[in-house]
C-alpha cells in the first residue's frame, strides 16, 4: 500500500437522480454543486476553486454544447478555466482523470470535477439513437445496432462460453434494486423479485427491461485538492491512491474478446499498480452496470473473481450489502440511474459517502478502500480509480 495519495477529495455533491421534469442540465448541476459547497464549509468556492472539468456526453438532448463554461457559470464559478470532457458514458470518469492530472501538475491546487446529463424529456427512440452515437457509425449504428444490443452480444457470448445464465444477470438487478431502495437519491427506489426481472419484456435478447440501466437526469461533482492541503478544508478527506484509463477500438466487433473489456482490465492494472494494491484489498466498489452483464464482466475484469465466474459471485451474494465485497451500494446505474455524463463522478460520490461514514442505511461498516470502474460505450474507454479513507 502506498503512503502518499495522488490527490484528496474534500467534498462531493449529487443532485437527485430521476425524471427531473422542467429542469435543465445547468440547474441540475447547480444542485450538485450546492451540496458540495455545503458539505465543506471551510471552502470558499469563488476564491479556492481554480478549474472545472465536466463530463457531458451529448449536445443532442438539449441542443446545448459548450458545457464546461456553462456549468462553471451556473455553479457560480465564473471566470475559472472550465473544460468539458467527452468519452460517452465514461465522460466524467475521464473528467476525474483530467482533474487529477491538473492537481498533480501543480497548475491548479483545488479543482471541481463533475458531470451532467438531461435525458428523460426525449423519447426512448431518440435516446437510443443518441446513445448509439458512442458506437461505430458505419458498421454498428448504421446497420441497426443499439447499446442494449451491443451488451446483449456480449451476454450471448458470455452465456455460450461460460454458461452464465439469464438468472445470474437477474440476480445482479435484484441486488442493485435492493441497494437502490436504501438510497434516497436513487431514480427507482424499489426492490424487485427475481421473477419480476426474469419475466420483464425483452429489450435486446437476452437482455430484458430489468437488465438495463435507466434513462435518467442527474448531475454529480467532487472537489479535489493536493493531499497536503486537504486538512485545511476537512478532517475527513478521502484520498485517491490509484488511477487508470485505457482505450480500445470503438467497434465491439474489432476486439479479440467479446466476453471481457480489455480497456477496463488495463485501467484496473494501472490503478492497482499505482496504489500498490490487489483486488483482495478492495472493500467496496461502484462498477459500470449499464447492463447486468456489464457488472458480471466487471467483476472478472477487476479481478474480484476469475473469468467466467462473475455470475457465480453474484449468485453467492458476495457483492450484496453484507457480502465479502459489496458492489454498487448506491443502486448502480440499474437503480440509482444513469445520466450518462454524470455517472463517473456519481460513482466517486458514493465511495466518498461510504469512506466518510455517511452512507446511512447502506453504510458498509469499516470500509477503508473503495474502487470505481466507469466504462464508455461498449468499452472503448474505461477509467478505474482507487480510494482510501483519510
Amino acid at each position, binding site marked *: 500500500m502506498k503512503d502518499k495519495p495522488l490527490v484528496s477529495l474534500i467534498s462531493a455533491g449529487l443532485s437527485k437522480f430521476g425524471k427531473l421534469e422542467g429542469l435543465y442540465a445547468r440547474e441540475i448541476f447547480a444542485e450538485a454543486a450546492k451540496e458540495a459547497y455545503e458539505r465543506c464549509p471551510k471552502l470558499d468556492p469563488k476564491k479556492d476553486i481554480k478549474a472545472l472539468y465536466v463530463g457531458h456526453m451529448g449536445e443532442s438532448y438539449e441542443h446545448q454544447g459548450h458545457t464546461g463554461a456553462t456549468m462553471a457559470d451556473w455553479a457560480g464559478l465564473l471566470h475559472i478555466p472550465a473544460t468539458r470532457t467527452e468519452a460517452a458514458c465514461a465522460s466524467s470518469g475521464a473528467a476525474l482523470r483530467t482533474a487529477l492530472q491538473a492537481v498533480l501538475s501543480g497548475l491548479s491546487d483545488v479543482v471541481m470535477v463533475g458531470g451532467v446529463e438531461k435525458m428523460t424529456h426525449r423519447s*426512448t*427512440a*431518440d435516446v*437510443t*439513437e443518441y446513445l*448509439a452515437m458512442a458506437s461505430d*457509425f*458505419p*458498421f*454498428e*449504428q*448504421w*446497420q*441497426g*445496432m*443499439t447499446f*442494449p*444490443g451491443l451488451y*446483449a*452480444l*456480449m*451476454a*450471448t*457470448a458470455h452465456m*455460450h462460453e461460460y454458461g452464465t445464465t439469464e438468472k445470474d444477470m437477474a440476480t445482479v438487478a435484484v441486488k442493485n434494486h435492493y441497494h437502490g431502495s436504501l438510497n434516497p437519491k436513487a431514480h427507482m427506489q424499489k426492490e424487485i423479485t427475481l421473477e419480476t426481472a426474469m419475466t420483464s*419484456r*425483452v*429489450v*435486446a*435478447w*437476452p*437482455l430484458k427491461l430489468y437488465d438495463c440501466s435507466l434513462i435518467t437526469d442527474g448531475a454529480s461533482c467532487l472537489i479535489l485538492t493536493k493531499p497536503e492541503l486537504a486538512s485545511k478544508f476537512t478532517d475527513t478527506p478521502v484520498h485517491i491512491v490509484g488511477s487508470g484509463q485505457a482505450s480500445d477500438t470503438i*467497434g*465491439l*466487433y*474489432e476486439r479479440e474478446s*467479446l466476453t471481457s473489456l480489455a480497456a477496463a482490465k488495463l485501467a484496473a492494472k494501472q490503478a492497482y499498480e499505482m496504489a500498490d494494491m490487489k483486488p483482495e484489498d478492495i472493500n467496496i466498489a461502484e462498477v459500470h452496470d449499464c447492463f447486468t452483464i456489464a457488472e458480471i464482466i466487471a467483476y472478472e475484469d477487476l479481478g474480484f473473481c476469475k473469468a467466467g465466474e462473475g455470475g457465480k459471485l453474484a449468485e453467492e451474494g458476495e457483492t450484496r450489502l453484507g457480502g465479502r465485497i459489496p458492489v454498487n451500494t448506491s443502486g448502480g446505474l440499474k437503480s440509482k440511474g444513469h445520466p450518462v455524463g454524470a455517472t463517473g463522478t456519481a460513482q466517486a460520490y458514493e465511495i466518498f459517502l461510504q469512506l466518510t461514514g455517511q452512507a446511512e442505511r447502506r453504510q458498509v461498516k469499516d470500509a477503508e478502500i473503495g474502487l470505481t470502474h466507469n466504462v464508455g460505450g461498449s468499452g472503448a474507454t474505461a477509467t478505474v480509480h482507487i480510494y482510501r479513507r483519510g
Partner: protein
Amino acid sequence: MSGKEQFTIERLCQGLSQGKLLGGKCVKCRKIHFPPRPLCDKCFSDRFEQVEISPNGKLLTYTIIHIAPSQFQAMAPYAMGIVQMENGLKVPGMIRDVAADKIKIGMSLKIMFESCIPTSNWPQWPRYYFKPA
C-alpha cells in the same frame, strides 16, 4: 501515399455497392484491415493492397433487438450478430431470412448487399445484411 491510389473507406463502400467485400492488406506486415485504414496499426506502413474477402462466415454471437432507434423501429424485432468471415475478419450486421429461434452460434452465414439509398451527401455508408448460407 507512395504515389499509389489510396484505399479509403469510400473505396470500400464503392466495392460494397458492387457486391464485393474489400479489405486492405498491409504490404509490409500482411495484416488485413477491415475497414481499410491509411496507417497500419501494427507496423505504421501506409501501403496496402486490396483483397477481396469471401462473403461466407460463421456466427460468433447475436441478439434480437426489440427496442430500436426511430429509423429501424418498423423492422423490430430484428436479429443482429457478429460474423467471423473465412479469413478471420469480424463483421457485425443484421441477420435476416431466418426465424429468431433458428439462429445459433456457429451457423454459416453469407453477406448480402443492399443498394445504397443516400440519405445525405455525406456520409453515405452502404447497408448489408447476413442470411443463412
